[in-house]
């Protein structure tokens, strides 16, 4: 569905350029959930932004190809890209609440989606959120972090995109909300025409949710593993990361 071959992503600062990501390949197939694991600052968010030319060109240079629907997203016009980001490839960024304008009521976003309240209500119900009527009248700052995260996913799903990209969906949310997101993502790809790409440092969530997982560090991505392959991987970088988790799981106070 989407095939990315990113040769490099560089950032310019005071006339100097620094390479952030190198030789990253990603092929997203229909009906699958992919996770990219990595520590803070490993470049996960930069990578997903590079896929649809979201990185400002005054600062970043992206070399490579991202093929989606027969076009190269790195060469596409801004107008075309906006259309794709609105309807085909939807992002839910970290710190969901900050993606909403605090001066606008939630109704504004519901209206923007052009979807019937009945259909919206259905999704709100699934995510155990307040009713359409109640939410419509609220401002984003009146929502808890977990509610905002769920609402942002609802808004993304309303567009019925082909690919949903989630940036750290579990950060700052309860386990119960994580459970809900996990169930919905599985549901979303079940009919084999949608896909999900998750970037996270939460190995448990990645293992529970994903068909394929890769590890990003020092600007390079490993190949995609199944959950079992990942846990058994001989790759030293992957191993070190997993060992931190094991240490956390085994230790006691």
């Amino acid at each position: 569905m989407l095939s990315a071959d990113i040769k490099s992503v560089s950032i310019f600062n005071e006339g100097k350029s620094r390479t952030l990501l190198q030789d990253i390949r990603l092929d997203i197939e229909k009906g699958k959930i992919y996770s990219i694991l990595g520590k803070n600052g490993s470049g996960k968010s930069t990578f997903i932004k590079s896929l649809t030319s979201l990185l400002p060109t005054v600062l970043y240079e992206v070399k490579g190809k991202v093929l989606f629907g027969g076009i190269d997203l790195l060469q596409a016009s801004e107008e075309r890209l906006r259309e794709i980001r609105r309807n085909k490839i939807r992002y839910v960024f970290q710190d969901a609440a900050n993606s909403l304008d605090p001066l606008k009521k939630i109704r504004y976003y519901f209206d923007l989606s052009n979807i019937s309240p009945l259909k919206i209500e259905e999704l709100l119900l699934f995510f155990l959120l307040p009713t359409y009527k109640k939410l419509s009248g609220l401002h984003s700052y009146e929502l808890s972090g977990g509610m905002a995260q769920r609402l942002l996913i609802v808004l993304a799903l309303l567009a019925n995109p082909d690919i949903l990209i989630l940036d750290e969906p579990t950060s700052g949310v309860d386990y119960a909300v994580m459970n809900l997101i996990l169930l919905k993502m599985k549901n979303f790809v079940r009919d084999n025409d949608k896909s999900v790409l998750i970037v996270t440092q939460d190995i448990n969530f990645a293992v529970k949710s994903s068909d394929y997982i890769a590890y990003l560090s020092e600007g390079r991505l490993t190949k995609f593993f199944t959950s079992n392959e990942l846990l058994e991987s001989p790759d030293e970088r992957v191993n070190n990361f997993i060992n931190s988790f094991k240490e956390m799981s085994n230790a006691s106070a």
Partner: protein
Amino acid sequence: MPLLKVENISYSVIVKEETKKKFDILKNVSFEVEQGEIVGICGESGGGKSTLAKVIAGIIKPDSGEIILDSEHQNNKRKSSPIQILFQNHGEVLNPFRKMKNVIDEALKISITDKSNLQIEREKVLSSVGFPKELYDRRGMELSGGEQQRAALARLLAVKPILLILDEPFSAQDVESQLNLVKLFKQLNKEFYITMICISHDLQILRNLANRVIVLKDGEIVESGLTKEVFTNPQKDYTKFLLSAEALDLSYEELKARNM
């Protein structure tokens, strides 16, 4: 006599000005903390964990109940509170335009009597949290999230607290940083005998850090006891729910049965 006694703390806020309708955030919360302990407080968002921390630190005045600190530690000469909180948004706590050296010195001047020792004390407190020397002259905005957190922690330690409250210090950090932080807190607890209360919704962190754990739900203590016992043999449904939610094994029906 325990170091800290939390007795029947209740706290509510008015949600509707016209009708004076109240919402109870804390309901009759009581527990004790012994000197040298690390006590964990867990529960879901909105359960009252952070409010409880603020009440203990004296930032919020409860409607009723008492916070009693062992009189042995009541020192009238203290110029700072013996209970300090490391807040979640530590980055916003440090002045972005001031050098870390000056931030720490300011706090040290409150607690030390002999000012000629300032430099030694500064190095002592900054090295105890693993804050590198080459960053002393950096300003708040020039530090990474992890470095800011260590600096904020050093500033709290500089006033020599008796009880340190950690409010979700681990959120938004990768597991390696979390592990380092757990080790750091344990070391501070051991070396300086600082008693700690750690608030976290992350049960795995509390397993690693806390000897004892309190489960809070809708402002009430549901269950408490040794961390190992509570988490391996939970008695209450809510604790059982938290544990199966942690494993990401809940079905939709189980989630639906709960009011989120």
